[in-house]
């Protein structure tokens, strides 16, 4: 089996994150049509469908569930 994509892991510790209604925050690195290549904090890559959040650009942060961006994050002020 190839290296699992980010978020694709199902472990005894965390279970299947999709079943758990968990969504992860990813940052867009490049865009091709309706798909964006995104990375998580560990630098792992995932291709994400972006039709539900409109046009995205590199640097945008998306809330991703089951390979689909379901919302974009509003900027969180740092330091508080």
């Amino acid at each position, binding site marked *: 089996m190839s290296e699992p994509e980010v978020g694709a892991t199902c472990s005894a510790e965390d*279970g299947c994150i999709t*079943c*758990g209604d968990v969504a992860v925050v990813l940052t867009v690195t490049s865009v091709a049509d309706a798909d964006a290549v995104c990375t998580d904090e560990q630098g792992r890559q995932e291709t994400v469908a972006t039709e539900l959040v409109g046009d995205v650009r590199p640097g945008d942060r998306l809330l991703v569930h089951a390979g689909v961006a379901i919302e974009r994050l509003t900027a969180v002020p740092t330091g508080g």
Partner: protein
Amino acid sequence: MRFVDEFRDPELAEVLGRQITSLCEPGRHYKIMEVCGGHTHTIYRYGVQDHLPENIELVHGPGCPVCVIPMGRVDDGIAIAERDGVILTCFGDMMRVPGGRGSFLEANARGADIRMVYSPLDALRIARDNPDREVVFYAIGFETTAPSTALTILRAAKEGIENFSVFCSHVTIIPAIKAILDSPDLRLDAFIGPGHVSTVIGCRPYEWIPRDFGMPLVCAGFEPLDLLQSVYMIMKQFSEGRAEVENQYSRVVAYDGNPVALRVLADVFALRPFFEWRGLGSIAHSALQLSPRYAQYDAELRYELPGVRVADPKACQCGEVLKGVLKPWECKVFGTACTPETPIGTCMVSSEGACAAYYNYGQYAKQRLNLEVLR
């Protein structure tokens, strides 16, 4: 700084705990239901309950997608997978959910081809790569997950992929909350609303809860401090005599949800008149099926299915656990006949199921809290 650090700050957790305690009315017991299984997981994993005074009780709700799938629909999935040339695909936790004829894993051992995918788009890719096979996606989940399935069907239609269909068991959260509020055996004071479901549906669909039942509901994020802050916001409402829908998770959840996702859902899906929930019984308008426009992608129309209602095992008390009436450890088979390795009921399968979450973390909550949160 990691995104989550500020939501696990030990000092803030203590301060919040103290503020919550100061808002408690002496002698009053508060029952707050967290609707979402993801919250249940966080609560046990980080020992959130240990930061709360004894008279605030967190009650676990029905929001674990695999926990609510009835046995009969697992059997339907197996019947599809046993057909010649079919590849059935599903999310990871679904593989171990027991049906009347065993689980998907057991069906694979008998020769079926059931594959785990992370996204319905992966299932569509398998269909594209295997034009001589029929690929079926076994769709489960609340409104967080339903948009991914909808989008996948739209892409299949756009690309004209014909060897792909969806067996749809998507459910909706509002009717489940209604069913719980109508259930006579439970008295609740407030709700912690599901954060990621609300990303899609927004906060407005909950407004009837404070209006008709006088109960606060706060949509919450998934870090330990998100949950503590939500409890604080609920207690603040009590102390000020308010009952409202509030949004603790505003860094992600817009009050009106995601309008594009809602439009896509309305296009691809239609409400089922009834759907059977494991343990909760049949609930009106509580699940989605493909709308007539996308009927060609509906596995329930494409294949002949047993569609039989299978009664839950006698020993199983998942229904009571899903309604928050019983705590996991109060079930007679908890930890003995029913464990994550050999689940009898669904709540023991997914780590968001209350039984599995308690089994994995419950006894260790205090140490874990000290090690992980208060690090």
